[in-house]
């Protein structure tokens, strides 16, 4: 390890543990759908086999890695926090991404609970700004935490003057 300059500090709050389970199941479902569809093409349309075969193998490997490694790796990396000044999040696994947006630039605050997320009691918080580059998405927060955080953000945003552009 060389003595490289310090990275931005990670935000304070980790995700809910159930994030790992949720992302594993989610990835498994996608893998089944995509590989199933391609597998059906491979099985029924013999002409396409030389073309679909290599794609199928590569995708199978990619999905295997995703299911085995990605969810827990992401769980170790992902952090988020909302303060009175800013929303700050760190996401990614192979590529890390820090994002920060001051409260005065927030345009809308969304909570979304997908069907699978509801089964695990999780929610996704999205903070949108006038630029989609500035949008921050925090996936896999426990529904209760999300409600608290969004309530707080709502209060802070309403009292912070700013035209968000």
């Amino acid at each position, binding site marked *: 390890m060389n003595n490289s300059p310090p990275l931005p500090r990670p935000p304070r709050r980790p995700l809910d543990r159930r994030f790992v389970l949720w992302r594993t199941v989610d990835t498994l479902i996608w893998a089944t759908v995509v590989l199933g569809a391609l597998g059906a093409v491979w099985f029924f349309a013999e002409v396409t086999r030389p073309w679909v075969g290599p794609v199928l193998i590569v995708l199978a490997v990619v999905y295997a890695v995703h299911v085995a490694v990605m969810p827990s790796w992401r769980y170790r990396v992902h952090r988020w926090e909302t303060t009175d000044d800013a929303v700050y999040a760190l996401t990614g696994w192979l*590529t890390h991404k820090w994002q920060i947006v001051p409260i005065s*630039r927030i345009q809308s605050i*969304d909570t979304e*609970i997908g*069907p699978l997320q509801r089964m695990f009691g999780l929610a996704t918080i999205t903070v949108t700004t*006038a630029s989609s580059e500035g949008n921050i998405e925090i996936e896999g927060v426990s529904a209760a935490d999300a409600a608290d955080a969004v309530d707080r953000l709502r209060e802070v945003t309403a009292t912070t003057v700013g035209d968000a552009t």
Partner: protein
Amino acid sequence: MTWRRLSIRVVYLGLIRLAMSLVTGYFGVAWRDDPVWPLVLGAVGGLIGASADLSRWQTTRFLITPERVEMRTGWISRKHRTVARDRIRSVDSSARLIPRLLGLRTVNIGSGDAETSFQLDSLDRGEAERVQRELMPGRGSAVSATFSPAVTSSTAAPASPAVTSSTAAPASPASPASTAAPASPGEASAPASPGEASAPSAPPHEDISDISGMSDEAETVIARLRRPWIWLNAFRIESAFALIAPVFALHWALRPFGVDLFRTARDLFGTDLRGIVLILLIAVPLGFAVAAVAFVIDNWNFELVRTGGALITRKGLFTTTTVQRSDERTRGIAFAEPLLTRRLRVTKTKLLLTGSAAGEGGGDILPRTRLEEARDLAAQILPDGARPLEAPLRRHPRGALVRRIGWAVYTPVLLAAALLPFPLPGWVWPLPFLLIPVTVPLAAIAYRSLGHTVQDDYLVVRDGALTRRTVALQNRAVIGWSLEQSLFQRWAGRMTVGIATAAGSRSYEAPDVSVDQAMTLIAEATPGLISVMTEPPATSSAASPAVSSAGEVSAC
């Protein structure tokens, strides 16, 4: 302050659609022995649409308080959106034919970007007008639930469905500009072409007498069309091919009349190399000439003036285009220098405006000019007279060059490897290797383009291989930051800084800066935010997972 829901007529509409779909579906199946597929598909589509309508009515609730607007919607996937009142930029309503017959209106609430708006689909007409009045921008927290139309209607702007976009940007001081417009009486009297952001009322001639009276709002001319610009804008790579499309169009237009243009050309010039060279010798100069004429027609009497806090561009021979840009909306300026004319120091100049749709909206402030004159003009175009585009830039680390050369080499290699397993002729897969002699020099050029700095109120970034873009953005226009670090960047201590903004193309980048440079950049441009990213994690909280794994994260 109660949660309200959509109009009950949405349900009626849904039921009507449901009934119609069922009837169509029945006919589709029972009409003939075989199902009539278009009818069946239409019925299925109608069923899905109707159930979507019904479930939307069932699940949607919205709330308007003095501080904010909220909406909950969704059944399988639940969504809850909150927008603060003072962020709302536009409220408008619209309706398609059948919902309108039922007295329904869709209300769109916009807070700047298209995707951040939300839609109330649909409300009763009266309810829609009430919501529009309640949400009129600028009437934010002061409004205390005035539901009686009598109170508000006097102050509300025309409640027609076109309240949008006029409020999207701070109103520019347009009136002095429009009255002072015709500087020389003989010209610029043609009607402003529609579609551009033209001055509100076409300048009538009577107003000329007023100009002397309002000398404080006098126009200062920044630039007029200069003759060298014609050549700079005509001699470009696209011009050489300017004739291709018209020739093809002519060919296909003449075909029905028995004239085969291509055969005539073949007969005239032959099909050997000499003929092709001959055609090129005629076509390419002709292409340049056409481009030159088109440029002159477009930019006839081009004039860029500043008056009363706004920039006004007037140009055009047959139709005079007048574009007005308020100084309040200016957030920066950018140069784009194409690679082929880099030696000639030719650049295009763009103004970064906020409050306009991404990409378009009066960004092109000057045609291609020489870099030296563009720099002088830029200083006059910016309201504060700054010259940020000339600031000396900080170089990016050497590793950025290695990374770019890496891309230049391994992209073709990977492409070749990806072609290998497929049943293609044997000579196909090595083809990507031919790209390497092109991509490696481009990688070096791309690295030399990289640079960034902060000068006074401006953040400056430069990058690009085929077109080198230098962007100067005001610090106050920075919405937020994103720092991205791939696995390799992490090992080398570099990161890519993304700058989110509401102006220009909405996001800019400083690729591959060192971590130190990234933090310095953020600290200089937005001093308030850097403290959030560097302050040590709170030690008081016993939230051990956060603290312990914080070490993990920075260690890996």
